[in-house]
């Protein structure tokens, strides 16, 4: 067994176990910690596939940013009282139907394999010499082909930031 398959199975087990723990823990602080473990595993999967830049972004942005945001919000909720209450909602049938449908649908496409899609042939890697490293390649494409979506993403982030501040701000007239 090669090293990359061993690492893949290691990361896969970590991701799936941590994800299961994330959605089942009673205490939401534990959920957030298991979410961090999941995200680290996903970063490892990116590394295995040669996406080093994305692995870095995953660590910095997801773990350093989004998870900390979650932990900050958890501080506003009374956790000890919260963890005594019922965890799951009582819509078992909906969950069962949706899960079976989703599994069947995705499993069908996986079982069909490449025949169910019109997939392109794997092209040989770009010629070495001009652009080599992963982040350089991404930067090249991002700032030429995807320049407009890139700028729109910055507007989206600005809107989200203003929206979050307005939502979270205490109303002066309230209380």
């Amino acid at each position, binding site marked *: 067994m090669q090293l990359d*398959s061993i690492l893949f199975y290691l990361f896969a087990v970590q991701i799936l176990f941590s994800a299961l723990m994330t959605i089942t823990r009673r205490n*939401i602080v534990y959920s957030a910690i298991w979410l961090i473990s999941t995200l680290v595993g996903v970063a490892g999967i990116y590394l295995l596939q040669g996406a080093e830049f994305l692995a870095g972004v995953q660590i910095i942005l997801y773990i350093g940013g989004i998870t900390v945001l979650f932990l900050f919000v958890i501080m506003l909720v009374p956790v000890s009282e919260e963890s005594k*209450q019922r965890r799951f909602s009582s819509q078992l049938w909906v969950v069962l139907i949706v899960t079976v449908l989703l*599994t069947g649908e995705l499993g069908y496409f996986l079982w069909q394999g490449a025949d169910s899609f019109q997939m392109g042939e794997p092209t040989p890697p770009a010629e070495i010499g001009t652009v080599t490293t992963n982040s350089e390649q991404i930067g090249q494409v991002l700032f030429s082909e995807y320049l407009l979506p890139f700028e729109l993403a910055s507007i989206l982030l600005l809107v989200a930031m203003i929206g979050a501040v307005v939502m979270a701000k205490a109303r002066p007239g309230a209380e």
Partner: protein
Amino acid sequence: MPVTHYLVLSMALLIIGTVGVLTRRNIIVILMSIELILNAVNINLVAFSDYLQNINGQVFTIFVITDAAAEAAVGLGILIALFRNKETVHADEIDILRW
């Protein structure tokens, strides 16, 4: 590694995330499950990017991560506003639009 392995992993993570969204009562855990779903999508995109030797998938992943950050910020902002008005974070207790 064949690409199928990554797709199965992505599929399993997507299903776990969906189950989390549908079953949990706590809105914070629901938002975490949405992050799980987005990560499943990212694994898929990066797997095909590696398989087809095409960098576009990784660029799409960057946009997905951007959207995830925006979604988490706005979602948690809404949650704070909601918690201030009605002292609960349970999805099934928020029915103030109904009379």
